[in-house]
């Protein structure tokens, strides 16, 4: 595996191409083990934030707004953007890059688009390892976009420092997430598309549900990525969460 060693050496010299190649290797089952050995879990300095929610809730627009905010504040950001893979063909349309509008050669931004197998609990293969690599490279913040939360060993709540759950008014998705157990595990909950009717109700209801007296404090915010509202408050809520990714990695 001299190839891998060479890449790691170049990676340590902040060679972005080497980073890119290592991410690809991490995504491939046959090579991931070897890569994992070089990037122990929770060793990178960068904060890993997972953004999860149903398709259509507005994750990528929200991520676009957060990236804008973070870059303006001088923070470097890496994004792992996921879209579902077609169960029939294995192909995927990965269109989240274009939601993030930054100048062409912004060295402080890195985006990798991934496909996750379809299904509500799906996360992209080895996404935790990929986030670790980006965190180790030196990005201040690593944003993971996932459709689901994974199950057991691939649980996103363990891979990330902060888990943000996005809800949408008028869909009843808060019930669905409650059933799957993710609502309890989220560190921050955001009701997106705040301009739509019903947003206030969902926000209050979920807030009361999650913030029982004497229990964990869970910020439940509202935001509208399209109107660019609520982003500063959201980032503050995320940033003030305690750090510490769990010691378990992906299977």
């Amino acid at each position, binding site marked *: 595996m001299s190839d891998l060693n060479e890449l790691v050496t170049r990676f340590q010299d902040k060679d*972005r*191409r080497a980073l*890119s*190649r290592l*991410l*690809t290797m991490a*995504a*491939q089952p046959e090579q991931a083990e070897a890569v994992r050995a070089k990037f122990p879990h929770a060793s990178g300095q960068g904060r890993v934030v997972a953004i999860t929610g149903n398709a259509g809730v507005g994750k990528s627009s929200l991520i676009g707004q957060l990236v804008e905010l973070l870059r303006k504040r001088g923070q470097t950001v890496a994004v792992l953007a996921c879209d579902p*893979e*077609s169960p029939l*063909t*294995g*192909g*995927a*349309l*990965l*269109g989240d*890059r*274009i939601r993030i509008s930054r*100048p*062409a*050669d912004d060295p402080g931004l*890195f*985006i*990798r*688009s991934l*496909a996750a197998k379809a299904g509500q609990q799906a996360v992209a293969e080895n996404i935790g390892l990929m986030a670790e690599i980006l965190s180790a490279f030196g990005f201040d913040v690593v944003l993971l976009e996932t459709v689901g939360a994974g199950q057991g060993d691939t649980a996103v709540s363990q891979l990330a420092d902060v888990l943000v759950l996005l809800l949408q008014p008028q869909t009843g998705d808060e019930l669905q997430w409650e059933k799957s157990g993710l609502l309890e595990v989220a560190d921050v909950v955001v009701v997106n598309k705040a301009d739509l009717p019903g947003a206030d109700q969902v926000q209050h209801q979920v807030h009361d549900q999650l913030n029982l007296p004497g229990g964990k404090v869970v910020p439940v915010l509202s935001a509208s990525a399209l109107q660019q509202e609520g982003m500063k408050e959201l980032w503050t809520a995320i940033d003030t969460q305690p750090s510490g990714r769990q010691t378990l990695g992906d299977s």
Partner: protein
Amino acid sequence: MEHSPQRIVLAKIGLDGHDRGVKVVARGLRDAGFHVIYAGLWQPPEAVVQAVSDEDADWLGISILSGAHMTQVPRLLELLRESDLDDVGVIVGGIIPESDVHQLQQMGVAGVFGPGTPIREIIEFLGR
């Protein structure tokens, strides 16, 4: 053994915003099992090359309908070479007069596909 799907970045460079063709090709490639990364409209060549590098793509497909291909494409190829991305295959789609096709291929473009090319032809080409 499962082989990983091929990753292709599709982008439009220059100011032209007609994206019907690139959207249809994107879906066609998706249906053939590709992972298609759409880098969007109005992309400067530098942004496209950055995307190809960061996404570690196998292919780059450029759609260009404005007629400025003979200035834009060479620049793109040069940037790819400079960024050590020579092994990325480049295909170009759009309105390219026959007389320019040969020149583009000489420069390093792997394939040029005019409007109305059946998707199947592009898929077969990329499969080779």
